[in-house]
């Protein structure tokens, strides 16, 4: 037991090193003056040269703006659709078509991206031929595609959050005469709010990160940031991509830190409310 424990811990340290060394090296070399990227130019480094080049590169800035717009829109759409699916799967019991809905919400999680991308593009082309909509491909088609695969992730998050609560609160409100819509907005929604936040963040990240599906469904002239990065790095390393990566790592870690602080605060508040409710009603713990 003890010896396996030590071996496992050593492996854990190596594993974490393996996960973080590439990221750290990207951050370090983003301050390197040399165009060779990985050869450290100690005479002129550290420098912010690549950061200023980044901020004057209109191709990257345009792509970033498109990516943010698509990620925000598709994350909002995915949260709405994923919440509906998650609530139905966790609370509606065995309705007709449940098995099919389970299959449809898990399939996008495991479908290889090249297939999802190809099939969505073929759908958009067929729709344009048949109905004349969506005209051409660009932001709209990318957003629709991203909504479709990220809603599956939101469904899992919402469903597992709801599975953690029994239905007694909703049933109590129902018994007191609240209509289902009111029960949803007053009871269910506040309960699953943390899941909606993490689902939204997950959907945002998935969209912000996607290159394969976007490549299929984006028309000429609309390139998301990952598409621009991908075509740049296929030709080799480029120093401004290091600077971009550093900015993104910084942004993501701040975002995660803020979100997890908020989530743990929410959980603390909820536990306090439950304790207070239990104490005031003189009931055994909720």
């Amino acid at each position: 037991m003890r010896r396996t424990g030590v071996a496992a811990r050593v492996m854990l340290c190596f594993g974490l090193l393996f996960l973080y060394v590439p990221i750290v090296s990207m951050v370090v070399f983003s301050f390197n003056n040399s165009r060779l990227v990985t050869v450290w130019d100690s005479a002129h480094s550290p420098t912010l040269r690549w950061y200023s080049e980044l901020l004057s590169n209109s191709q990257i800035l345009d792509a970033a703006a498109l990516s943010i717009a698509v990620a925000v829109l598709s994350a909002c759409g995915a949260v709405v659709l994923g919440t509906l699916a998650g609530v139905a799967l966790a609370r509606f019991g065995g309705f007709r078509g449940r098995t099919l809905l389970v299959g449809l919400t898990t399939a996008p999680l495991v479908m290889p991206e090249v297939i999802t991308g190809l099939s969505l593009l073929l759908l958009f082309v067929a729709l344009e031929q048949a109905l004349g909509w969506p005209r051409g491909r660009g932001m709209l088609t990318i957003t629709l595609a991203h909504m479709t695969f990220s809603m599956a992730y939101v469904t899992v998050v919402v469903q597992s959050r709801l599975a953690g609560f029994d239905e007694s609160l909703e049933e109590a409100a129902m018994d007191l005469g609240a209509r289902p819509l009111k029960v949803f907005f007053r009871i269910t929604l506040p309960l699953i709010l943390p899941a909606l936040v993490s689902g939204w963040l997950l959907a945002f990240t998935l969209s912000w990160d996607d290159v394969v599906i976007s490549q299929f469904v984006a028309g000429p002239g609309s390139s998301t940031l990952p598409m621009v990065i991908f075509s740049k790095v296929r030709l080799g390393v480029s120093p401004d991509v290091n600077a971009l990566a550093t900015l993104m790592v910084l942004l993501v870690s701040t975002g995660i830190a803020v979100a997890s602080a908020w989530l743990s605060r929410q959980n603390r508040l909820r536990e306090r409310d439950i304790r207070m409710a239990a104490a005031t009603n003189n009931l055994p713990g909720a």
Partner: protein
Amino acid sequence: MRGGRFTFGRRLVPGIPFLWLVLLFAVPFLIVLKISFSEVRLAIPPYSPLFDGHGGLAVHLHLSNYAFLFTDPLYVRSCLYSLQVAAISTLICLLVGYPMAYAIARSGATARNVLLMLIVLPFWTSFLLRVYAWIGLLKSNGVINNILMSLGLIHQPLVLLQTDFALYIGIVYSYLPFMILPLYSNLEKHDPTLLEAAADLGAHPFAAFRRITLPLSLPGIAAGCLLVFIPAVGEYVIPSLLGRTDQLMIGRVLSDEFFENRDWPVASAVAILILVLLVVPIVLLQRVGRRELGAQR
């Protein structure tokens, strides 16, 4: 949410996401299937219609695309290569990820949360950029070669990039969290008194691990392996950036058929071929995976 009065709402809630997924997931898949049976045309879109205008129901099924996939060795070889790469990567992920998950599950509550955070954090930063980072480490004048040369261990830079080695590193690096998380959520639930009982009865720690921990963690192993194996088979970005140029993985073949050759019917047939390869693992994942996935997120 019971009671017959609210049947309309009860249908609407599952109905909207259901319709969405049918329209944007199931129907597109049927279109791929349909186009895989059509002929390539120099037109926009570049495939022949399956239903002709006059006969209405006269369906032209062209099996030529599939016949082509099995006559040109390129496709079969890419399939086998993809399966091999995915299987070996999954095995490496398991060998590296199991001890990591085990160590996390055995640490104290505070350390456990920090460690889990450290595992998940890279998953939130851009996948593409993390794969890109390995180019800087592995290329001939990259970080690893520079360090080895300055230590005097090698005199010529090693060829690391665009090899199977780089490809395995990239896949293991990207998918390791998918292996660790289901394993962790399984190992964490084990009852430590079982191991204590085994020790009291005189079992060697390794025997206790082999006869108690390992069998109990099989569902976690299955979920983790499938979560790595399935996406690895169709992987496109990692082999394009790090992998060999003389042997393509099947996802890249699909994309090249589509973008380079503009042969939509063959690309669709390749998509169907990938799905056929993955149908067994996907069904298995539906069985074990949903429970394990639901537990961790």
